[in-house]
């Protein structure tokens, strides 16, 4: 049997909006992935440490506070520093379209906005997971 895809669903920063993150976590689990959910209020360092310890293939970041340009980028930079370039990083939340190109440049592979069917996230991960 193929190795299960391991995903870390993470909530960086002080944002308390966890509805989306929890729905995505549950949907990925239902799709047969192994999911670790960090819970709230994680610093970028904590997220990267958990990603390493749990040896995940994917990091999914969720943020609705508007701090994504700082906090998503922090996580991506730190993962790179730890030679975890092969981890697929995706993000979701209230993210204006115009911020997406800069996030992609920083290493966030895809950004999923409000109204995204969870199935779309599942199939994106399956298609793009790097290891």
């Amino acid at each position, binding site marked *: 049997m193929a190795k299960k895809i391991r995903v870390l*669903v993470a909530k960086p*920063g*002080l*944002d*308390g*909006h*966890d*509805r989306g*993150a*929890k*729905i995505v*976590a*549950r*949907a990925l689990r239902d799709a047969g992935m192994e999911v670790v*959910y*960090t*819970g*709230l209020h994680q*610093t970028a360092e904590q997220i990267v440490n958990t990603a390493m310890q749990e040896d995940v293939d994917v990091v999914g970041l969720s943020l609705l*506070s*508007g*701090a994504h*340009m*700082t*906090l998503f980028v*922090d996580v991506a930079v730190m993962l790179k520093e730890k030679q975890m370039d092969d981890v697929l990083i995706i993000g979701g939340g*209230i993210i*204006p*379209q*115009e911020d997406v190109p800069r996030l992609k440049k920083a290493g966030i592979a895809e950004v999923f*906005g*409000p*109204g995204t*069917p*969870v*199935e779309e996230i599942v199939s994106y991960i399956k298609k793009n997971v790097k290891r």
Partner: protein
Amino acid sequence: MDIAEKDIMEQIRQRHIEWEHQLYAKAIKENPERKTKFKNLSEIDIKNVYTPEDTSDLEYLNDIGFPGEFPFLRGVHPNLYRGRLWTMRQFAGFGSAEETNKRYHYLLGHGETGLSVAFDYPTLYGYDTDHKLARGEFGKCGVAISSLVDMELLFHGIPLDKITTSMTINGPAAIIWAMYIANAENQGISKEKIGGTIQNDILKEYIAQKSYIFPPEPSMRLIVDTFEYGFKNVPKWNTISISGYHIREAGSTAVQELAFTLGDGVEYVKAAMKRGLSIDDFAPRLSFFFNAHNDFFEEIAKYRAARRIWAKEMKALGAKKTRSLWLRFHTQTAGCSLTAQQPEMNIVRVTLQALAAVLGGTQSLHTNSMDEALALPSEKAVRIALRTQQIIAEESGVTSTVDPLGGSYYVEWLTEKMEEETYKYFDRVERLGGVIPAIEKGFFQREIADSAYRYQKEIDTSQRVIVGVNRYQLDEQPSIPILKMDEKGEERQIRRLQKLRTERDNSKVQSYLQQLRKAAEGDENLMPFILNCIHSYATLGETCQVLRDVFGEYKEQAIY
């Protein structure tokens, strides 16, 4: 029911059966129904038609009554909007205090009648802007307020004795409230003259919104401190806004929102009574806050049921004053119902939701802006949202009579049904040992997560249609202008904080912080101590840190 009435009811019943078997059966043969079951968002089955049979158990004088009379189903005020319209209160805050102050003047200039402050995340967690955990969050989700200096700028040019202000603040509510009071006092306006609301509802933070700081016990103590200080010193202030809004936004159903909110309300009342406060002293200053979601009649029934349940519960707890029995509430249209797709359509959603709130008898209302699934609202978007309320108020005619849907077979049936379902939840929570043990067991969190997941599945499988999302989609990306914030705001704010920390009388600050620490270790009411700290220009972060040291911090078990 007397014999004549029973006879009429029997005739209705028989006619109903005939109608179902003849006319209705024929109709659905010709036009089969679009769904096998019609359900509202709380999973309640909705019948094809409602008749006097569905309300036959209701006695008008006992169960419905007149507006302004027990059980207040039809409203707390006898003449409602015929006298005074609801307060149009747009939740607003972003960037620095100066920018948000400008937005307040803009909104008031366009006919808004009350203010409502949105704070950024660092402020909600009691951190100053230069704290390391504030990274990236300055002014993003609201305005940053780190000290009395910021509060002064926030309300510059606004008459605090004439405008009421609602502040969405929970963990550090007592401290932010102290800043508001101190600012008024410094302007020569006494505490008795200011009016407004602090949200101050920590239970729903643990349950849903998640901006908690301290563990339940000291949090409840702080809340009761504000109740006591409020009715004695700031009599026009609502010292809590018991909130279902965030429970709903986190994914609950309408029934769960209603049940969990009122359950929290009873918990606060019991906590204050345990302190020895008299219910009729503090209860008139309790207020509520509900969501207005998509299912029109369900929302209206929810508000009506809330009033009746609350009046009964308060009476059972020993309240004697009429005002203690009143459930007064603010409503905000459902942020989670807004779509990023075809955002202009949100104007229509918001109109329907706002109308439901008005037909439900809300005391104040926030209408969401069409662009809020994308970013914080632009000036134009927020003006349209405010105009939506003004059109309902001035043009629609729905304000001419009180509780226009009272007596509707459907609405009365649904109101009663929601009340029944609420009491079932009360029983379940009771069996878990009460609200706080149920929080600690993750009961509410799990119930909400289940409902949220089910709702999302229904949308993903198109069982539930959301226009523009899973039907009637467009390929093009939305192109509406997004609010831009002053990029220099954070820098300015940090300079202001640093200047304050060097220029104020620091020995006075330290001495007041020390006194607060001592008091927190004991059991005195903390409000006077917090006010001293704030008047001496201790910052939010410094004051909150003292309480963090004494009370500790709450950590939740993440459930999904």
